[in-house]
């Protein structure tokens, strides 16, 4: 379980993400705009932030700058941007986001990214293609 902060002025997106992330066992907090997001970040100290770019008042970049300016281990930030706005993606990367998703996105995509950084996916050590070793038929788990 992780503490996740969703910062978005769009109530429908806040609700969608809250439902899906809570179903997955996460502790979800929401903020309704940029200033609210900065305040919530300081109080909640989340493990992951989902951040909309376009918000009235303080926008997503402003929130990101404030988050990155804090003296703590960097928290993963996923930025949500309008699809047509490719300039904003470039700016987000330059400002130090960790993930970027263009709208429309699915809640499953968000969940997948959160799991990737905070979860426990056990990798399978596959032999690289064209490797110089033999690979037996021994099933995993037997010896």
């Amino acid at each position, binding site marked *: 379980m992780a503490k996740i902060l969703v910062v978005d002025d769009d109530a429908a997106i806040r609700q969608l993400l809250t439902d899906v992330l809570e179903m997955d066992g996460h502790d979800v907090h929401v903020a309704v705009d940029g200033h609210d997001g900065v305040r919530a970040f300081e109080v909640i100290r989340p493990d992951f932030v989902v951040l909309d770019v376009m918000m009235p008042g303080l926008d997503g970049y402003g929130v990101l700058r404030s988050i990155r300016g804090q003296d703590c281990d960097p928290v993963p930030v996923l930025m949500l941007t309008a699809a047509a706005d490719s300039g904003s993606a470039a700016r987000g990367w330059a400002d130090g986001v960790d993930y970027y998703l263009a709208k429309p996105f699915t809640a499953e995509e968000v969940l997948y990214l959160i799991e990737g950084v905070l979860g426990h996916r056990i990798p399978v*050590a596959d032999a690289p293609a064209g490797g110089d070793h033999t690979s*037996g038929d021994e099933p995993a788990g037997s010896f």
Partner: protein
Amino acid sequence: MTTARVLFVDDEPRILDGIRRSLRGKRREWDMAFAPGGEDALELLAGSAFDVVVSDMRMPGIDGAELLTRVSERHPEVARVVLSGHTEPAAAIKVALAGHRFLTKPTETEALVSVIEELVVRTSRGHGGLARRIAGATRALPALPQQKAKLDALLAAPQVDLAGLVHAVGHDTSLTAKLLQLSNWGFFGARPRNTSVAAVVNTVGVPTIQALVAASEGLWSAVTWQPAAEESALAAWRHAIACAALVDDVASPAHRPHAHAAAVLQDIGRLMGVGGGPTAADPAADAHRAGDPGGVPYREIGVELLHLWGLPSPIVAAVAERDTAHRPAESGLAVTGAVRAAHLLIQRTESRDPADGAHSDELRLLLAHPQLAAQSVDWARAADEASAQAGRWLGIET
């Protein structure tokens, strides 16, 4: 559903009963055995096969640290979980080397179940059993003579240069793995997320690092490196250090600590089972050391070790996929993509053949990703600089 054969060891009947009760729901899936002490546990282990042993630390007779040390020697395929209320400071280092995973009492049943279920999984598809035995026998990793010299010089100084130590430990494969294992399992207190080795060193302090280095070196004092093995391990280490410096620029801020660690750990398998060690009694492991082409690839052994030790999964995944072609997701390079990009860039820099175009299409695609394109960095030059810097640090100018 996982079939697990699990042995629980505790001298307090009340605790064993508690575990038995809380895991009632698992009794159709798991074969569970319960031993009231180290001696009984060793007898049970000698009599039948287990996947996981979960042991208390403070016990009369053979205590937990001694039990798990013996299990690592006699039954390296058995994953070792420490379930402890309190560890005597004097035994802490022995416990730190003997255990794979660490849980504190009281522990949530859910946490215990998920640790056991993870440990039943073997990451190597082709060599599950042998990779588990080689990785399982490894309590600490040997240091290259150059690595040892650097750390010894730093730690022997009357006033330890903390910044220098942080830098050296952050470049050291063995200590990076051990410190991230211990910190990720709350061995040093709170369990941090996304933490860097530098932060761990600053938290635990010099005496702990000194004790860990001394204990690890104690395990490997008899190792003499074969010249060819030492040369290839040194080249791999230089590559790892160069990648780690470069990936600090490639990875995004929250992925940086994991990406840096994955770069340092990318060839950890090369340090394992080298030159005779704890697995000397295992003929199959001997064949691996002799470079038997039918043996287990280094990468698979290294990944199995990182998995057993329970390092953060983004690190383990990036090491597992270092040699796998990466198609960057629009959502970002994350840890695996950043490490793969740094690896390919450094490989190109190190290539003796300027016309070597291996993976050039993949690299072009990675560098064109908005995450990297948004930074106005000349990546080829950055790679050259990182490689030269690594050479200078190791004292092997080229």
